[in-house]
């Protein structure tokens, strides 16, 4: 059963009004839609062609959120959730790869395991995730910007639009967030 656009919108409204349970309900809905769309896109694209992820998230938004709902014009929550979702997917994957490298008695199986990710990349993703968790404790917005930029692939302008702030603000936040994260990662490494 595809979620009804109105439901997603209502959940977004509820969440933006502080209902954390609504967010938990949204996650699987957004995940499934993203999964479906991504799958669809991947199958259509020629091999080697890079997926336009911001387009993916945009399409999920259009499909899931009732655009006629005048009470709901703020896209930040939806994109935020989508970005978080993609972060989780990537980080979990990276962690599991790290885990496999360490795991002694784990049998290595290549079941369509055609994703080539270097161990540096996975290590970077895991370290970044840890650092982002720290950042989020005192600066939620910078964390969100990193999520939108790095995990959801949004440009500065797109991120600004989503967050309803100026591109300059995003740029500033992005610069400091990067500096802080990089420092944090090198400190812990």
């Amino acid at each position, binding site marked *: 059963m595809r979620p009804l656009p109105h439901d997603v919108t209502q959940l977004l409204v509820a969440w933006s009004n502080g209902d954390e349970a609504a967010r938990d*309900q949204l996650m699987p809905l957004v995940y499934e839609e993203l999964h479906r769309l991504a799958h669809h896109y991947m199958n259509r694209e020629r091999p080697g062609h890079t997926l336009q992820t911001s387009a993916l998230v945009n399409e999920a938004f259009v499909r899931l959120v009732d655009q006629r709902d005048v009470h709901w014009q703020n896209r930040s929550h939806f994109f935020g959730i989508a970005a978080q979702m*993609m972060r989780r997917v990537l980080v979990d994957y990276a962690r599991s790869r790290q885990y496999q490298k360490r795991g002694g008695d784990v*049998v290595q199986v290549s079941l369509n395991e055609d*994703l080539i990710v270097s161990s540096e990349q996975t290590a970077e993703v895991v370290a970044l995730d840890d650092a982002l968790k720290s950042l989020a404790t005192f600066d939620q917005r910078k964390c969100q910007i990193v999520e939108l930029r790095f*995990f959801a692939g949004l440009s500065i302008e797109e991120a600004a639009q989503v967050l309803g702030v100026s591109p300059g603000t995003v740029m500033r936040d992005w610069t400091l967030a990067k*500096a802080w994260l990089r420092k944090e990662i090198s400190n812990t490494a």
Partner: protein
Amino acid sequence: MQPERWQLIDRLFHETLNHKRDERGHFLVQACAGDELLRQEVEALIASHEGAESFIETPASALAAELLAKGKTGVGVGAAIGPYTIRSVLGIGGMGEVYLAQDKRLGRQVALKLLPGQFTASPERVRRFELEARAASALNHPNIVTIHEIGETEGTQFIVTEYVEGKTIRDLMSERTIGLIEALDVTIQAASALEAAHKAGIVHRDIKPENMMLRTDGYLKILDFGLAKLTERPHLKADSSFSTQMQIKTNPGMVMGTVQYMSPEQTQGEEIDARTDLWSLGVVLYEMLNGCVPFEGKTTSHVIVSILESEPKPFQREVPSELQRILVKVLRKQRHMRYQSARDLTVDLKNLKQELEVGDRLKSTPGSNARVGEERTEIKSAAAGGRSTSETIRTQASVVYPTSSAEYLVGELKRHKRGLFVGIAALIIGVAVLSSYMISRRAKAPETVDAIDSVAVLPFVNESNDPNAEYLSDGISDSIINRLSQLSNLRVVSLSSALRYKGQAVDAASVGRDLKVRAVLIGWMTKRGDSLSVRTELVDVRDNRRLWGENYQNRQLSDLLQVQEEISRRISEKLRLRLTGEDQRRLGKAATKNSEAFQLYLKGRFYWNKFTSDGFRKSIDFFKQAIAKDPDFGLAYSGLADSYSLVGEFSLDAPKDSFPQARTYAEKALVLDETLADAHRSLGIVRLFYDWNLKGAEEELRRAKELDASDAQSYHFYAHYFQFAGRLDEAHSELKQAVQLDPTNLVINAELGWADYTSRHYDDAIAQFQKTLELDPTFVLASLWIAQAYEQKGMYREALDELKRAKSVDPEWFWLDAEIACVYAFSGKRPEAEEILKTLNQRRTAEYLDPTVIAYVYAALGDKEQTFVWLEKAYQERAGNIPWIKLEPKFDSMRKEPEFQDLVRRIGLPQ
């Protein structure tokens, strides 16, 4: 970090960056005004910034999307969770991620579900979920997924269940149209699971297409029992749509799509019970047939209003009116107006399915290649559009299915041993060889010396979707059973017990437990035109391990016999094993060399197994055709004897038209092959019920038992010999053995109760009949007999209730009417009893009625004169039931009468 501090850093960082490089140090010292830590912090950030140009500038989103597309998430392939190694992702849903995993300890494949943390935060909830999930799993129901483990790893809860290879009903609906029969079958299986769960006090709460998994072999599994406990909120007594909305909205994990399957009481947050599951199942059935749910709406609240207030959307296609009635009843807003139990729903659905199938068979010319049934039972979903099938559906709905008087009586009488075929022998040799192989192999390991000494052959699954090929799939199973029964030291479960699993989800382990066997043979066959493919799998029930499997692809149907010889050779070679000479002889005995005759015989057996008067007539026709093709085909004669002897014993036809025929054909069969156990048994039945020749009957029945000691029916009929000989205790012990051999056989279970009844142990009899009815509530013979036992105990109300229920199952069978008349007579309602008698007498002009049954009613009315008139009639006709008068408690009041004693003497039964 303190937010104020961070804001300060933020500001200083950017201000510093606005300065030229060589001015930055100076600026910072001043700006920090002695706060050395602050200065160091900003300085470090600036330094970090200097080298951060490319840092995280290339988004990882493409990789994330790729992972998303492949459904790869949290746990990677190869990762280990406890003793489980993740193999692949099966699915991701609102209630967690599901993986295919390997259990390292047992080597088996399992499904592993990780539960999202928000659902498992409350230990109390987790405990309730665990309790219920385990309780459901412990039911060992074939349609309920078995839970292996509920555990925790690094703070994440996980559930490990049996791995079900198949598709959810949701997937199926999006892929293709689900046919009417298939939809009924799925619903029946689901209802069967719910029945078991509800009996144990477990309500699923979240029945929906996503939770119903159809295996490739047609068996349905219900997933996620108990899981709803994790998301459940305390019940709200809420009426306003506002609070309803709130409840649904704030219920974590409540994916909106699920609302469509909620019952009215569920949307209102009221306490729910078993009837809620039935509603949800009704919605699923509706959706399978109609391509959309019955209650729709633009938003959640619209859906809820529709559930509470609207009638289901009308069907876009015509469906049988009985099905519409069932759906209306299951989707009643008021719980007390709905089906009250899954069992009631199952009974109605099964009856409907049976009727539709019988309708199909009536219409399809046997042997023709026209796929009539398939066409007719298909309902195109709206999306499929195009060709209208409403005409054919209407035809189907209007078919009248007269349940002939005795259909249900014999309806489940044991499908006993079939013939011996060279053909299918090949498969059997394979299994037999395998068994000895296992025995020898196991013998080497001291800890596993227990050999596989028992096997159940489940009905082969006909994958052709061609109802005309059913005779082949049933025939193959049947013949394998028959063949294997010939082997010494191997116990084989009869087809009747195995047939209980036809079209059901089976789990080898639970079949093994139910039937008390060590191994289960599962098979699939496909017939395309003249081409036949067969797959088999032998499974060890202890651990569901596959012991052996083989594919026989694209063989020619016309070469069936040769093909199977080839198969047998190949299996022998493959396993490099030899059977004993005697076993070889038994398995290889040729029944006919004529392939056409063989197939006609299989068709005959197929109809015979239907156990309806119509089925018997058809089987007789096919057996005769088979004989026409090969006049030396012993099995076909044995089949004819089988049909006629049972028609006679159960008074489906006048005795003079059935018993003599049975005798002729049984004798002919035995001339051709003296070792045909079935033929000896048929002859024994004729001698017992028609010749009243106790000694002669005993010889034949004993010979049948010697030839086939593992056949429960041999014990069953031998028990009748004991009964007529007045040796009731021995009869009882024979039937006990029969039940042990064939624990789920309805007739044999009922006969055990009948033995209690004739021994005047009414309480035991009632308990045994109840047990039989639990196996199948539509088995009206048990209903009739339990009513007789109630009657003897003076429990007239119970008797009448049961009889009325039985009549709703089979409105035509006159024995039920006669028994209702008896109960009326005993409870002082003479006019009602006499009224029924009048009707029965009228019916006698049109169809054969055993006069013994009419005598029952007169005896109940205390009319001795008429009782003896009718008993004399029965005696003259040699009616199938007359020998029973010696034991029937209904005649106890006149047992002392000289006329009665004279009658018993004339029948030749010991006084």
